[in-house]
């Protein structure tokens, strides 16, 4: 199926790379989130500089078959600006933590973008005509005296170059004391949730001046705090169900029909710890950095530091599948703790049919797992292999002393090059991979 196994069906090949080639990366240009819209025709990225860049898929062109499905810049806008919290004397970063598209309802597109504190609803609309022929103003722009207007002129629409406008429609502010880590649009298309380290709020998309607190794990005494919320998401079909993951490696599923404040979960997913692999860093590496429901709604996937787990919503005791992402790092945890990499928040995503999953690693490597064949593959997002239609070679990391050809040793991995954010097209085999300030797009090549 998804080319994970390599060879049988298709291979991944390079399609495009976006972003500067410059070695010297500006902090503001680092991509902090990637998200396809519901049709997959638009792809949005957010960066640490508070900007949102939207790419649009070009229509297939029969004269240029190679340009099939390329993405080009559609709109760029400044979503968030740096701010200062005067009460706390804290700077509020403009970094875009998450982007979520709303299901499309008319010609315009809507998305939610959030930084640490404030969520914004943006409308992205096209304009390719302008209105001409008013006689209410003078040539210099001043309003004319109504008595001097003697004729009735009907303005006419004239075609013009396509213009894409992004306008902020709603600003949802002042509801989060801690850092927002997740936003998720509900399947009712009317509400969404936003989660920070200790609380989850429920919003109506039209109402900005109030939200409902649906989860609050803040202890009365902050000294007793041992656990934080790391991610949260609504069920794709049941608008009353959502999950949130914690820094202790557990996932709680809540049903909003139970009570207004979902302090008591309906389901609690936790895998017993393996005592043999216990270390000082056991808790840190079990902290869940991302949780995603499958498109079917039957499963959910969680990413912790070293692995990806697939859970059946009907079984809380253990995951149905566990995939090792970079098990070779287990012996390196101390240095990864020392250089803070252990706190990196890797995300994960499903393909359109839920048959494959993808997540990132270090050294600009990313991993894919085929759930049916249990095969996995490591690929690299690099400029070297970025010739048009170049097939991505599987990469391999070796741990022992002997290094085979084309293998890379654990010790020579570059931990500054990390792939935290990836996205899979909702229906096609197109993936977007954020590697620092570059966005790579890969597609399948059917053999």
């Amino acid at each position: 199926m998804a080319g994970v196994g390599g060879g049988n069906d298709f291979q991944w090949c390079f399609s495009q790379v976006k972003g500067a080639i410059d070695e010297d990366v500006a902090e503001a240009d680092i991509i902090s989130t990637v998200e396809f819209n519901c049709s997959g025709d638009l792809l949005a990225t957010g960066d640490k500089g508070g900007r949102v860049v939207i790419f649009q898929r070009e229509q297939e062109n029969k004269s240029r078959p190679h340009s099939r499905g390329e993405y080009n810049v559609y709109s760029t806008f400044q979503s968030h600006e740096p701010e200062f919290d005067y009460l706390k004397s804290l700077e509020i970063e403009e970094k875009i933590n998450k982007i979520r598209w709303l299901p499309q309802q008319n010609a315009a597109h809507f998305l939610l973008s959030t930084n640490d504190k404030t969520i914004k609803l943006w409308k992205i609309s096209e304009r390719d005509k302008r209105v001409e022929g008013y006689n209410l103003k003078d040539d210099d722009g001043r309003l004319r005296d109504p008595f001097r207007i003697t004729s009735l002129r009907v303005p006419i629409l004239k075609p013009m170059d396509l213009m894409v406008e992004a306008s902020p429609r709603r600003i949802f502010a002042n509801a989060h004391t801690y850092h927002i880590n997740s936003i998720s649009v509900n399947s009712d298309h009317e509400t969404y949730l936003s989660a920070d380290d200790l609380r989850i709020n429920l919003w109506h998309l039209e109402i900005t001046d109030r939200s409902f607190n649906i989860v609050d794990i803040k202890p009365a005494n902050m000294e007793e705090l041992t656990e934080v919320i790391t991610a949260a998401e609504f069920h794709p079909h049941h608008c009353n169900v959502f999950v949130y993951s914690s820094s202790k490696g557990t996932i709680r599923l809540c049903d909003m029909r139970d009570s207004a404040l979902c302090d008591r979960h309906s389901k609690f997913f936790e895998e017993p710890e393996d005592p043999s692999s216990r270390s000082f860093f056991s808790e840190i590496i079990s902290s869940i950095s991302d949780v995603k429901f499958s498109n079917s709604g039957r499963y959910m996937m969680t990413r912790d530091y070293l692995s990806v787990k697939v859970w059946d919503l009907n079984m809380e005791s253990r995951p149905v599948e566990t995939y090792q992402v970079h098990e070779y790092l287990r012996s390196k945890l101390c240095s990864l703790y020392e250089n803070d990499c252990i706190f990196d928040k890797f995300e994960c995503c499903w393909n359109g049919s839920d048959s494959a999953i993808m997540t990132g690693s270090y050294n600009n490597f990313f991993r894919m797992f085929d759930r049916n064949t249990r095969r996995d593959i490591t690929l690299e997002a690099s400029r070297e292999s970025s010739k048009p239609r170049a097939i991505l070679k599987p990469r391999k990391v070796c741990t022992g002393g002997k290094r085979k050809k084309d293998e890379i040793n654990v010790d020579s991995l570059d931990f500054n090059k990390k792939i935290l954010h990836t996205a899979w097209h909702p229906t096609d085999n197109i993936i977007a991979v954020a590697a620092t300030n570059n966005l790579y797009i890969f597609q399948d090549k059917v053999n």
Partner: protein
Amino acid sequence: MLGRGLKRKLNDCEETMNDFSSACDFNRNMPYSHQRQLVLNMCLNKLQSYKMLVEPNLHRSVLIANTVRQIQEETRKEASQLTGILYNDNACSNVIYPGNDSIENPVNLPCGINAVISRDSWPFESPVDSLMEVTDDDMSSAISSILKDLDFVEDISPSQTPASCLYEQPKPVESGCKVGDKQDIKGGECVFGSFEITSSISYLKDLSVDDIFEDIDTSMYDSDFSFSSLISAKVQPAEEPLKVLSMCNTQSNNNLQACRTDLNDLDHIMEILVGS
């Protein structure tokens, strides 16, 4: 006005972490206790460097604090086991400390261990406490050698150590003060022997895990006051395990050099703290 290019960077704290870079990735020969000490040092360093960051990351702080707690719990268990051994083997089960009913126990070695246990009542221990616990428990081999020595020191008549005099501690009896005597016998080469250093421990107290959250939750400021008052009440026991530490240092030959570097790191941490 905040320019977009002016962002908070981790560089500053990364530099301070370089001190430990040589020690990372445990080699298999490294004793477990040493590894633990190393991790603890890193935790403390990270927690401290947090204060310099403009915007603390709660998730990271909680994970680091939990790591400290885990190490603390481990050493506490070890310590209680050790106490069991101590009291059974040496049959000094009913040590009497006149005029002293609880934690503020001046007796050196057993006190160090004792305090570890009784501090269970302490709601949320500072990493410093655990640091001290680790440093004394850490060198379990050293402690066991002290325990061996206890047979010998029990014959010596009890007397007060100079440090406990300073604090006008109730007169210690039994084994602990004998260990203190032993410290004197061993000479003044104890790293933490000097008063200035012991007093600077109170700065280390600033590192307490709850303080990390202080910046995040303003309601903490109230409890913080009571906390600092509690700290001042605990200054006395705080210094004691450090003496044990220095004891261990002088006593265990095999760990001597390693301990020294640990203590240098500690010194370094304290310098940072005093400077901040």
